[in-house]
């Protein structure tokens, strides 16, 4: 029986860019996870619309003889792309669909000069000992400057680093050192929303993607996110897509390395009441990994898990 799929759910996991190390999903151990709670480090990105895969692999004949007869075939190019639109807007969805640096709009300092992706920020707040992935200890005085529902970006100061930057997930690549002390907090994907504030501790709605914060990390309040058409960095992520069949079966598409191959765009869908829903849409190209089982170079895995 062909799987009957109504919709597809998407999941994210980081790629260690510096070491070219993606997150691999093992369908034998985790193929039946509950859709709402993927196994770590996978992060639920919600439902997607218009999930379409494109195979660009070229298979050419190898002919010989007169007249020429195809004796065998060879794969001359391996290529896979896919396109879809996220149903939900969030930091990760915006960053991945945008495909490039995704700036956190840090709260601006009073009188700062205007800037398109965020003016000079208010000085960041150091994290104190005892902070965890969901609780940021900042002390009672500093906590008074934050409010419930506010976004926060948590990362280290920029002290002239180059290369991939951003804790947990690389959010940018710095070819040259920058002087903005807050730059890494501007591009970090290590963000959260404050659920409650009590006794100098900010409790976040969900764990930070980088886990327990390091000792040098600081926290900046943000008012939102911003992406820019035309910047240079390529986001890369390990992706998982799950289609749940009606007989308990499941189709899992796993792309260990995906990069956006489209610019920043939305697709518009009709919504109830005469409204239009803006979906984050994108097209991605799959990049290769070596399957450790036999050393083959592959760009995606499709698994069928029987119900």
């Amino acid at each position, binding site marked *: 029986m062909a799987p009957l799929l109504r919709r597809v759910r998407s999941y994210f996991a980081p790629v260690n860019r510096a070491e070219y190390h993606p997150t691999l999903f093992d369908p034998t151990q985790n193929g039946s996870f509950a859709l709402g709670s993927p196994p770590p480090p996978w992060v639920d990105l919600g439902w997607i*619309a218009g999930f379409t895969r494109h195979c660009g692999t070229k298979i050419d004949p190898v002919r010989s003889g007169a007249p020429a007869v195809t004796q065998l075939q060879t794969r001359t190019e391996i290529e896979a792309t896919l396109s879809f639109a996220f149903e*939900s807007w969030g930091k990760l969805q915006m960053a991945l669909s945008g495909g490039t640096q995704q700036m956190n709009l840090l709260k601006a300092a009073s009188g700062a000069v205007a800037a398109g992706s965020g003016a000079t920020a208010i000085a960041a707040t150091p994290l104190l000992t005892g902070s965890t992935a969901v609780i940021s200890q900042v002390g009672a005085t500093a906590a008074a400057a934050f409010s419930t529902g506010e976004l926060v970006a948590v990362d280290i100061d920029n002290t002239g680093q180059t290369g991939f930057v951003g804790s947990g997930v690389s959010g940018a690549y710095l070819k040259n050192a920058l002087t903005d002390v807050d730059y890494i907090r501007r591009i970090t994907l290590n963000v959260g929303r404050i659920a409650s504030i009590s006794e100098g501790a900010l409790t976040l709605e969900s764990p930070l993607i980088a886990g327990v914060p390091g000792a040098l990390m600081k926290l900046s309040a943000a008012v939102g996110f911003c992406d820019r058409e035309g910047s240079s960095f390529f986001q890369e992520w390990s992706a998982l897509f799950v289609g749940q069949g009606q007989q308990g079966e499941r189709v899992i598409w796993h792309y260990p390395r995906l990069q956006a191959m489209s610019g920043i765009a939305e697709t518009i869908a009709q*919504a*109830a*009441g*005469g409204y239009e829903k803006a979906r984050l849409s994108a097209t991605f190209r799959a990049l290769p990994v070596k399957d450790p089982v036999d050393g083959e170079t592959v760009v995606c895995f499709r698994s069928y898990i029987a119900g």
Partner: protein
Amino acid sequence: MQNAKDTFYEMLRGRLAALNPGRTIVLRGVVRPGVLVEENELVSTVVLPDCFRVNWTQAAGDPDGDLATIALQCEIEYETAGTALNGGMDRGRALSAMDAELQATINTDTQTALKSNYKGLTTGLAVEPMATSIWWGQLVFGKVEIKDDRLARTGTVMVMSYEKTSEL
């Protein structure tokens, strides 16, 4: 879903009362703004004139977002015989006035309202503001109906809300 319905009614009642404080009804011995939700009142064959009667008629869900979205069709019926002083010859004008009030209440620049949970009111507790807002579309006027000496119309508007599982 009930929180969305209650919130929309509260918005409607508050805005209509502010717009025309003189439009009131007496219901179960209480004078109140001239809007009621039929399903919240005693079943009756008597149709009150010169007030807005809210009916929730259809519902549809969209489960694909972070939070499921529910769309509720709200039909607002109203009718008038005009005034006895004018022998009902002003019934068209009275209906136009009600059209204008409804239009001004619903088709505003801000078509959202913070969703609240009113359940606590039944036990003396406070109204509980929620984390999301309801929103609604444009009001669509139906044709005028003639009901004996009254002119009647139904305005329809779609009301949308994000629904948490905890609201079920």
